[in-house]
């Protein structure tokens, strides 16, 4: 296969497929919880939100949601890129950008969470 280098191996693709489903299972209850919480806090000011977010249980939920969310996102967009981008070089570049996006913005969100907790 010509595009062999940019396509994940069968094993990796299976792992990605499984991880996407596992993160989906983790994310569903967290998203229900998150949307409900945000709705309940509509109109709340800085201090109220800060107290909420720094509560240990809430912070753990948030960290898990951010981690699973950005991972799930990168797997999903990876699948779209692999489906629609045929040119190997373009595909490779987009896949790298996709990974970088998740690492950078997921990283900023996680570091910010840790700054809030500690």
């Amino acid at each position, binding site marked *: 296969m*010509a595009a062999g280098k940019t396509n994940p191996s069968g094993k990796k693709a299976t792992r990605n497929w499984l991880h996407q*489903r596992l993160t*989906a*299972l983790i*994310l*569903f209850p967290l*998203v*229900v919880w998150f*949307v409900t919480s*945000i*709705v*309940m*806090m*509509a*109109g709340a000011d*800085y201090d109220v*939100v*800060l107290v909420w*977010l720094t509560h240990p249980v809430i912070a753990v939920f*948030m960290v898990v949601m*951010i981690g699973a*969310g*950005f991972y799930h*996102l990168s797997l*999903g*967009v990876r699948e*779209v890129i692999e489906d629609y981008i045929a040119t190997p070089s373009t595909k490779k570049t987009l896949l790298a950008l996709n990974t970088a*996006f998740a690492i950078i*913005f*997921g990283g*900023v*969100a996680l570091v*910010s*969470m840790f*700054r*809030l907790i500690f």
Partner: protein
Amino acid sequence: MSKKSRPLSPHLQVYSWQLHMVLSILHRATGIALGAGTLLLTWWIFALSSSREAYQSFQGFIIHPVGRLILFGFTFALIFHALNGVRHLFWDVGKGFEIFEVKRSGMLVVALSLIFTIAAWVFAYMQAGKL
């Protein structure tokens, strides 16, 4: 790889639009939109961890009609993607593949997405004391 001689499989333009197809496309579209939406989530947490002023500029964006519209779209995308994702998980374990089931679950997801999105915003406005 000669591009001319390669046969193409039938693609979007030759199918008549149907619910399951629209939802399949919408699942990916909302997934990508949520990817852009994560910028909002990251900004929110980053601002909270930075300073009161940083949080105020985030709030300024969200309160603006354009920001509100983006947040409304984010809400719908998140709820739809989560609910439709459940459909995909059922398919993954081999359930719900009959045509009538696919149609029924599809309509259910659309209806619930709209109901939950509107409910979330109505409750949010009530909570904020603006309704």
